[in-house]
């Protein structure tokens, strides 16, 4: 194993625009008693330094599984990566032995989870838990690590950090707990930060605080940020680029302005149309009919065809081309998108 080679390359400073993470043809399946659930069916994307990439999808779309596969924390069994590569600055993480991979987690790629209460250990003070990162990965002694932890808690604006460091997770509010998670995630100066529904459990006023903090930290450190969410509002607020997932497949990839302006895939279009807006009082919402498919029994052809308003006979039989390039940085997986055409929502 190239045990000495890749850490050398990784210690070089990151420049804005460098490709940090490249996921290629990733496939994940869960082998269960009921059958094989194909959770991800060939997903590819890049993440550059300083970029915010949103992975948008509903439950079961595979957005969280993608993050778990990148982090190497997939429950296995039943989950298995069956194809693809996850290149972190040129090195395929999927081929690294677990010992090496552990060094990547936290130090290079860190993750924030949705449910901070269950992600934190209830029987240790939060300061101790943040300090543990520094003790284990950096070999700091107890008191230095504790000082660092307090500094991090101040950085994520936890008031009275020195006192609060001795408190336990249950003594924190939801928003403060999420700040602790963020402090932990940035403790080792990661290059890539993955946030899996970081504000879903929070109230809107607290959500606004946390999203602002994340953006600030990202700009300060030029991290690559992957934001996994189902919330089209949050995405519009922070993302540079978006990939939309449906039933384990990537259906559309675009810059944020393009996606909201001119969604190319019928699913993205349906999703945008179906959300109620704060500044509008409409009649009935144009809902997408039907239900997301069961991953154990994916429809033939295009997975979206049973719910698609423009589906034709061909969609039931042929899987759509995985990437129809629609211009620079734009692609969609649909039989009926045309490059350079005006795929406006007005149609």
């Amino acid at each position, binding site marked *: 194993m190239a045990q000495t080679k890749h850490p050398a390359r990784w210690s070089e400073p990151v420049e804005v625009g460098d490709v940090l993470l490249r996921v290629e043809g990733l496939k994940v399946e869960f082998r269960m008693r009921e059958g094989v659930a194909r959770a991800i069916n060939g997903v590819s994307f890049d993440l550059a330094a300083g970029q915010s990439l949103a992975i948008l999808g509903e439950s079961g779309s595979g957005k969280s599984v993608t993050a778990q596969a990148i982090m190497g924390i997939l429950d296995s069994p039943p989950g298995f990566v069956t194809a693809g590569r996850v290149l972190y600055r040129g090195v395929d993480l999927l081929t690294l032995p677990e010992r090496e991979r552990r060094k990547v987690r936290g130090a290079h790629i860190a993750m924030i989870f949705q449910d901070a209460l269950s992600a934190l250990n209830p029987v240790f003070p939060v300061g101790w838990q943040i300090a543990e990162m520094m003790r284990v990965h950096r070999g700091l002694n107890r008191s230095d690590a504790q000082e660092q932890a307090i500094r991090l808690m101040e950085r994520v604006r936890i008031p009275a950090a020195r006192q609060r460091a001795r408190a336990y997770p249950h003594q924190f509010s939801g928003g403060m707990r999420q700040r602790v998670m963020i402090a932990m995630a940035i403790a080792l100066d990661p290059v890539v930060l993955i946030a899996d529904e970081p504000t879903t459990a929070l*109230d*809107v006023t*607290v959500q606004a605080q946390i999203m602002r903090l994340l953006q600030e930290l990202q700009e300060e450190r030029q991290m690559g940020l992957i934001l996994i969410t189902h*919330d089209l509002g949050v995405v*519009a607020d922070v993302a540079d680029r978006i990939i939309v997932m449906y039933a384990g497949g990537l259906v559309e990839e675009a810059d944020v302005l393009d996606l909201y302006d001119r969604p190319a895939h019928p699913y993205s279009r349906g999703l945008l149309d179906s959300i109620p807006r704060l500044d*509008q009082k409409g009649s009935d919402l144009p809902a997408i009919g039907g239900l*997301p498919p069961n991953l154990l029994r994916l429809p033939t052809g295009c997975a979206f065809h049973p719910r698609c308003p423009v589906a034709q006979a061909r969609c039931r039989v042929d899987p759509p081309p995985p990437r129809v390039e629609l211009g620079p940085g734009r692609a969609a997986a649909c039989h009926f998108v045309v490059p350079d055409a005006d795929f406006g929502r007005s149609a």
Partner: protein
Amino acid sequence: MSQVILRGSALEKHYPVKAGLFRRTVGQVRAVDGVDIELRAGETLGLVGESGCGKSTLGRLLMCLERPTGGQLEILGRNALSLDGRSLRRLRRDVQIVFQDPYTSLNPRRTVGDIVAEPFRIHRDVAPRGDIRRRVQELLDQVGLNPEHINRFPHQFSGGQRQRIGIARGIALNPKVLICDEPVSALDVSVQAQVVNLLRQLQRDLGLAYVFIAHDLAVVRHISDRVAVMYLGKIVEQGDEAAIYDRPTHPYTQALLSAVPTPDPKSRGGEGQIVLTGDVPSPADPPSGCRFHTRCWLAQERCSQAEPVLEARPDGVGLHASACHFAAVRV
């Protein structure tokens, strides 16, 4: 204007906080602390606020699931708090509820048919026994489920379909009021729209009045005629949907609305976005004076001393109720 069918005056629900060896009461959680509220036939009243503001407790008070510790409650012109068990049960027929979590609010060991038929078994005089099955199938059809699935179990349905089952149960007795406690919060975006549309459809067909409790402000606007905003057990602002969303005069409502991320990347940048500091204080120990003063950027000395009254105040176009000493439309 249509008839008032639900009226709460000065409603209070305080839960005792017990501690120590003898479980002595050491304090009160003021979940709902003096709320006046009215619901008219056929309308939708939206109830919004952050977690812990008392909106769900208020919903439960309005249908006598919990007994208020203070105040009056009138349902269809009758004093609901002085009724005996039998009359209360009779009255409950007209006020039903749909819960948030379609996974825990349906008994996993009973079929859909049993679940939706339950109200008929409690209120035996509503439908003759032989009619129940047919009636249940009608209800399933009405909420967009296949009537042939009457013998299936809840786990065989998706989240959105389960919420439809909960709605079918809620409308089984032809109530006049349906309390919807976060009915779409647990659902995916694409399915959420279907359920919201279904609720609107049922309202048109059956003339139902809704109390629609939710934290998603966009969904609430979409479905509500009037909206009440709650903070720490009190209503801080109340009015027509357009008044609350377009001309809010209470700083909390303004902050709440501005915190909602807009699904439009062009409106990014957040100029004018208010980011509140801090968390909601504990309802066991609410701040003095105006409860919002600890997080309010307009707060003056007076706000920590005198509690502002919820009363009609000018909003630039007309008047609507707001509880702020400095109520004004933000420019």
